[in-house]
């Protein structure tokens, strides 16, 4: 922590950070950037191809319109905001939960460790997509439920990775010293162990965000996501699926957006891991 390495960002870092920054700005400021209201339907302008003019009001539709005459670009931006928001919220919850469990398991060891890790094993044995679908079927759809479902499917990865690191950390002299001096367990975990796992957690979080975006998109593609008129990338791909012959842009554009975001996040995660190894 003290010996800060030279601020070498590298190609991987600059490309991924640049792309992510652009995506964040575009989606966070969607209301300012989007040319139209993403919910506004225009039955006169159904399925206009990208870069074609609108029939009535004039103006050009940059990325075309969908089957209800809504502007695809505006929906893409709003949808991205929602997708990112959902995945960041889900990763935050699962990250905090998973890390806490991981630290506790690793630090206390013994029975606590066994119980918590077997619990994690049980959940890992169920494919996360399957678990998510069943949970949505039981809990019902909706924004909060989707976040909960995603958070529940995500905690295991955090717990396992953090635990393995804590196992070696707790043997360090400074941890032993703190324990010998009678520092309470909670303080040891918070002051001496948690800070040293942060890099790992951050790397995991980046990878998990891309995983969550995919999972959320898959859920809304299957019609299990949030309200139908709310733009989401997965939902947009689904909407466009039956028009794939006649209106390619409906599915293709959000599909490309998902791919681009996942790619940049994975690059970023990769870069973070490289940095962690460098230290």
């Amino acid at each position, binding site marked *: 922590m003290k010996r800060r390495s030279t601020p070498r960002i590298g190609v991987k870092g600059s490309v991924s950070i640049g792309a992510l920054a652009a995506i964040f700005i575009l989606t966070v400021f969607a209301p300012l950037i989007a040319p139209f209201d993403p919910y506004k*339907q225009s039955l006169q302008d*159904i399925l206009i191809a990208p870069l074609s003019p609108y029939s009535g009001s004039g103006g050009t539709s940059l990325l075309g319109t969908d089957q*209800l005459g809504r502007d695809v670009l505006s929906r893409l931006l709003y949808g991205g905001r929602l997708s990112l928001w959902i995945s960041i919220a889900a990763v935050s919850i699962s990250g905090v939960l998973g890390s806490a469990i991981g630290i506790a398991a690793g630090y206390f060891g013994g029975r606590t460790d066994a119980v918590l890790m077997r619990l994690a094993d049980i959940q890992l044995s169920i494919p996360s997509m399957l678990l998510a679908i069943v949970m949505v079927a039981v809990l019902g759809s909706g924004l909060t439920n989707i976040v909960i479902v995603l958070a529940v499917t995500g905690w295991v990865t955090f717990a396992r990775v953090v635990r393995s690191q804590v196992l070696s950390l707790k043997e360090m002299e400074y941890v032993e010293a703190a324990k010998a001096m009678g520092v309470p367990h909670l303080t040891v975990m918070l002051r001496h162990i948690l800070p040293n796992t942060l890099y790992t957690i951050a790397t995991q979080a980046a990878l998990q965000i891309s995983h969550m975006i995919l999972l959320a998109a898959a859920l809304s593609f299957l019609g299990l996501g949030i*309200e*139908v008129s709310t733009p989401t990338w997965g939902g947009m791909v689904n909407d466009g699926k039956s028009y794939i*012959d*006649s209106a390619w842009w409906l599915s293709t554009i959000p599909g490309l957006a998902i791919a681009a975001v996942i790619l940049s996040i994975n690059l970023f995660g990769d870069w973070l891991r490289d940095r962690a190894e460098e230290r």
Partner: protein
Amino acid sequence: MKKGKFLIGLTLLTALTAGCSTVSKTEPAAPAAGSDSASAAPAQKLDITIGRAFDVNGLDPGFLTENAQVVDNIFDTLVKRDENEQLVPGLATDWKQIDDNTWEFKLREGVKFTNGEPFNAEAVKYSLDRVLDPANNAPTASYVSTIKEVQAVDDYTVHVVTKNPDPLIPTRFNRYPTEIVPPKYTEEAGQEKFAQEPIGTGPYKFVSWDKGSSVVLEANPDYWGEQPAVEKVTFRSIPEASTRVSALLNGEVDIVTAVSPEDRSKIESSSTAKLSAVERAGNTVYVGFKTDVKPFDDPKVRQALNYAIDVKSIVDKVLQGSAVQTNSLIGPKDFGYAGEPDGYDYDPEKAKRLLAEAGYPDGFSATLDTVSWYIKNTDVAQVIAEQLKAVGVTIKVNNVESSVYRTLVPAGKQSDLYVLGWSSTNTLDADAAIYAILRSGESYSTYSNPDVDAKLDEARSTTDEERRKQLYQEIQGEVIQDAPRIFLYQENQYYGVSDRLNWEGRIDGSIPVSTITAGAADGK
């Protein structure tokens, strides 16, 4: 409850593995494996494949949970319909009402089931008794619930005794669950085996069933009617609509059902297949109100919402003309249809005025439930929400998963606004088209009007046709005025048919394979 939720999850998974199939609601399709129209002495025996959206669940006509498109080719009913949907003799040669509560059927002599069992009055009685027996819990028993008992008078005469006068008895004996099954074999096989290896008297006999994928039937050489042109038929399940159309165009299948609106032009412009459109053969789709819940208990509110919807542009733009705008509760082919009544024009100003009069000048919020059963239903629901927003009513569209909706609606647990479609399918009678959704107390009805109730009840128990017509017309007028629903449209049905065959879709949704003949392009 736990079990219910588990089942929902399970059904969902099954649905997922099966792909995203669209299941159409309402009373499934028809019998009528009419031998009557098979053209004389076909030169060449045909082997065809029919691509449908889903596979059968079982092949026992008495215990179907879906339409009878497949089983109606294996079994016969006492009464059949010709291609003009007129009732014609099937296994019964003649029928008449002998007193208020009794109908007499004279049966066809010399007919045998494909396992050699003779067809006679006992078989008719057995077939009906097992459906009517409450212990058997037959899913479609309600279609014949007016019947008190079936009496075998002699070998070839049957008396059907009803609880009250029932003018629709011949119609009821045209559709499932009244297909006639062989008593001895059915008893020996048991319900489960019979559903997998059915035996009937129909123009086709069962060959094999590859679960989840296909059913194969072969012409019955001993059929009592004419021999059909099609020798062998395979019903294949292809859940994805566009895949179905591709399969038709590349010659894998010969007929496909449920062509989606955007695929129509692909078939029309192809050189190997043609589109068969059956106007208004599908469901009449509407937005139901829970009329006992505020604010929908006020007719003014319900009328206002009718004025607020531009149905014409929904049909033209969103549905691309794959439905017909209508205010009629009853389809044009149904008994009781009296032309197209006037309804509510698109008039948002009037809608706002009515809402203000009803005490909602600033509108209100509500949830609209929708489901994937009907053509582009989520799109339609979103347009409705947008148009209602213009008069101040905020709608949240809730897309309910199919298996969940199937249990919510009959239990009355859907939202205060909900999309539902209904049709008379193969009864082709107003009673089937409206009774279940308008009579108070019926599980699909969220409407209660004592006057309409009385008329519905009278119409189903009077045999005077003129009186019945008049009653349905009065009900129609009253319901339009009272607006327990937003009147929308009736769907069309589209089939794709290969040029090597000659067949047109039917209004009752049945596919009588024996009516399929070789087309002009065959043999080239």
